[in-house]
């Protein structure tokens, strides 16, 4: 019960963080900070893929409804959710995920987070800007947008994890 409540709270937090704060941050050069793929990363490892896809569909559409993007965020997030199991297998630690209680930075360590979160965010941002521009002759602008937004989103995702997720007690 407590765990479900936690996920719901996270869900609402990511909507409001994106809509009320990050949509209004303008850094120039087409930079746009998006942190909600972190929600997909933080969901439990053994989660049903259909539940995962449905949740990301709902989160994406909720953000879309409040930033007038008509399904852009949802589309990018569904791609991320679909590729999450593949990426997780790709970056699996030596002992697999059986002993893992959560996939945050304290449990998994910096190097796993760097690879997994980096990949998830890269796919998300690239897909998002690809759909948004939808023009092949703007490919350089697409790469510029992705490469400028990615580090900013990544740093904020890391900071959020360090600030708001409690370190588990050493056993």
């Amino acid at each position, binding site marked *: 019960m407590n765990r479900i409540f936690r996920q719901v709270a996270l869900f609402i937090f990511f909507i409001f963080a994106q809509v009320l704060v990050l949509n209004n941050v303008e850094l120039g050069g087409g930079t*746009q900070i998006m942190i909600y793929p972190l929600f997909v990363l933080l969901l439990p490892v053994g989660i049903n893929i259909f539940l995962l896809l449905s949740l990301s569909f709902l989160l994406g559409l909720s953000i879309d*409804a409040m*930033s007038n993007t008509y399904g852009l965020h949802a589309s990018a997030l569904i791609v991320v959710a679909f590729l999450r199991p593949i990426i997780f297998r790709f970056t699996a630690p030596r002992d697999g995920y059986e002993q893992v209680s959560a996939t945050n930075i304290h449990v998994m360590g910096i190097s796993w987070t760097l690879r997994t979160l980096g990949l998830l965010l890269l796919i998300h941002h690239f897909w998002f800007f690809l759909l948004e521009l939808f023009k092949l002759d703007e490919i350089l602008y697409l790469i510029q947008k992705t490469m400028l937004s990615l580090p900013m989103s990544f740093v904020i995702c890391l900071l959020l994890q360090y600030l708001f997720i409690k370190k588990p007690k050493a056993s």
Partner: protein
Amino acid sequence: MRNFLAFIQRFRVILFFALLQGIVLSIYFTFSTFPRSQYLTTASSVSGTIMTVRNDITKHFRLSDSNKKLQFENQWLRERLKENKLSELAENGFDSTIIKTDKEHYTQHFEYIPGTVINSTFTKRNNYFTLNIGTAQGVKRGMGVISDKGVIGVVHNSSEHFSVVKSCLAKEINIAVVIENSGEPGFLKWDGHNARKGNMTGVSNDREIKLWSKIVTRGSAGIFPRGLSVGKVAKTQAIEGQPLWDVTVQYSENYRSVQCVYVINNLLKKEQHELELDVPPQPTEDE
């Protein structure tokens, strides 16, 4: 049949993914050009209410700024009042500041509905503003929106109490504009890079265009009255292989700080539209 079921069983994840992706993409490609409902925009009551609460908190940050803007606009309008003009028999005889009001009765052509911007974006490819007025106040899809400094955009979609405005920072904004001095017509576009600059297309390059000449609305579609400020010519560049200028427009309004706007209701739009329908279609040359 059994093979078909086995197929679904095997690829069920991919099929579910494709289904969701199909829903989302069809929403994206149809609703951004023609919105069928207001539920997936900030015009819906839930997100509209959230934006109103946010705006109630943040609007005070720019209070003195917007007060000053309104004061300047009032001053400008006050100077145009009949009471503040000398009568036609002024001492100096003919004066250019005299407004002739020999015709007593005028027909109201445009109506203005005041509103406030409660949400706006400016970093996306297509940017929309949300206003706190809707169909209850008479706002409809396709009406023009202006501020004291210039054109803001066109109403894209409206619910009972909120409306979404496609701003001049959108791909397919296509407002008919004209260069004030030379009268060259064209269309306003936005390339998605700079929130202070747009483009004007369709200007033939056989005429010289002066830098910093004013660009105003043309008023041909009946959305805006003629002569509303849009911006100034910041740069002209020849397009390769076409007899056209690529005109860069410096917008007169800073879209990041817009608060008070007016929605324009053209009372004679129906009449203009019906008259234009009577024009027989032009034979096209390609056939």
